């Protein structure tokens, strides 16, 4: 489909304009996906929460409340953007865009199916880590510029948490990259076509890496049980206490998109991306491979929501102990273990 659009564009327009139009189209498609994914993940989160707490959840707007988050978004768009007099205006306004742009950039490199990938860069995984490492700057700056002690504490905690757990995310990805021998996402998936998904190929070290990745990934997105950043009972709303309207919505959306990104990384690295389980739809050419990708992503997201509504929040010292005294050493040993597994060719 993308190819036919491409051909059609180049046939009716001169080359320069056609490629620019194509870029714009891709950008618009991604923005749409971004918005829809964000909105419906919020709804899903509320539904799952309600289910876990034996409530009904949103059920007034539309059948089963499916337009609830649309209505919320409309409300947020039409709300006044308030800010206090004593904020650092420039940085205060910059911070939400910083957070959302990095999230969007990270999303561009995922292969949703064989044909559907915007930016197949040969350092894919590394690029992801690079982009996610600057996302935290938006939170730090937003918290500081708000000129509010709760926001500042939230921002400091966020920085501490992200810097610590980034290490675990990076190392667990590195463990899997040892196995794939490539950083390019499309190639990582191709490897899994023969020989099964990587979590199967890499067996024990891969499963350990997956568990570490899920823990660290949840912490990276500042979700419960690692939501010290915006711990409502202690800090009001943490770093976005002073934000309102759409600027708050940017932070909020970015959080859900980051969850989507973490789940996508997990799917690509461990569960074969858009490949079907046991190759059941391998021969069917019309079957959209995107389906498998999104099903897997949704399952992982559901797992993360499950975490959120199951575990209580950690204290700051427990958070740091978990990372530096448990996850990091386990991870380092695991990398060596993975190297031995590959060296002795124990891959399944």
């Amino acid at each position, binding site marked *: 489909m993308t190819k036919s659009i491409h051909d059609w564009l180049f046939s009716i327009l001169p080359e320069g304009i056609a490629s620019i139009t194509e870029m714009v189209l891709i950008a618009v498609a991604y923005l749409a996906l971004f918005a829809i994914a964000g909105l419906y993940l919020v709804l899903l989160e509320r539904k799952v929460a309600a289910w876990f707490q034996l409530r009904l959840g949103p059920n007034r707007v539309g059948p089963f409340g499916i337009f609830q988050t649309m209505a919320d978004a409309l409300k947020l768009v039409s709300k006044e953007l308030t800010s206090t007099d*004593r*904020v*650092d205006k*420039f*940085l205060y306004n*910059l911070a939400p865009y910083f957070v959302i742009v990095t999230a969007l950039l990270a999303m561009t490199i995922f292969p949703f199916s064989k044909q559907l990938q915007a930016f197949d*860069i*040969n*350092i894919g995984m*590394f*690029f992801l*880590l*690079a*982009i996610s*490492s*600057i996302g*935290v*700057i938006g939170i*730090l*700056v937003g*918290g*500081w*510029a708000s*000129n509010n002690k709760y926001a*500042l504490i939230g*921002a*400091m905690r966020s*920085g*501490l948490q992200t*810097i*610590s757990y*980034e*290490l675990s995310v990076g190392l667990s990805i590195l463990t899997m990259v040892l196995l794939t*021998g490539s*950083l390019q996402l499309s190639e990582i998936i191709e490897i899994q076509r023969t020989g099964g998904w990587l979590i199967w190929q890499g067996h024990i070290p891969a499963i350990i890496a997956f568990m570490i990745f899920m823990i660290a990934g949840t912490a990276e997105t500042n979700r419960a049980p690692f939501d010290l950043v915006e711990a409502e009972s202690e800090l009001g709303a943490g770093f976005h206490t002073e934000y309102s309207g759409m600027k708050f919505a940017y932070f909020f959306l970015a959080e859900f998109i980051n969850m989507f990104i973490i789940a996508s990384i997990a799917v690509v690295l461990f569960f074969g991306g858009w490949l079907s389980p046991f190759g059941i739809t391998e021969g069917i050419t019309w079957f959209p491979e995107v389906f498998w990708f999104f099903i897997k992503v949704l399952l992982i997201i559901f797992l993360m929501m499950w975490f959120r509504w199951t575990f209580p929040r950690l204290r700051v010292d427990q958070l*740091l102990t978990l990372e*530096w005294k448990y996850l990091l050493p386990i991870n380092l040993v695991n990398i060596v273990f993975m190297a031995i597994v590959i060296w002795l060719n124990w891959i399944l």
Partner: protein
Amino acid sequence: MIVFAIATVSSRKVLRAVMYLLFVLIGISGIYFLIDYSFLGAIQIVVYGGGVVVLFIFSVLLIHHVELELEVTPLKKKISAGILSAVGLGITLWAILTYPFKTANSYQSIEVEEIGRKLLSYEDGGYILPFEVISILLLAVMIGAIVIAKGKKLGLKEGEIENRE
């Protein structure tokens, strides 16, 4: 980028200066991406964006208040700094313009694997020696940071945060 570079040194609010610096660094990585050095571009973002600038922001967060402004630099210092940077620009431009560049005939983008092999090869043109020297330097820096951070009582965490540099 040049505008942001000037803004970095002329801004009177510390964190704004840091942000302008970040824009300059990201711009540089953008140039790397444009010339297809995507590995170097990503390294630039990780090290400068994710590492150095985040540490800057942390230190600013700890010691500065939003309404605090830096003092205005005296004109004399401004002029001397301007002259110095103009001289530096002159020398660089002269070096670039007089260097006989050749157009590369066969070109292919560099794979990460190649870089890795080159870094660890001990044959001619390998980079194992600088690689090891840098590792030892980093180890020394880490130990130094831990010792300083430790002080009298045990406070390992500050030292360990340095590790990711």
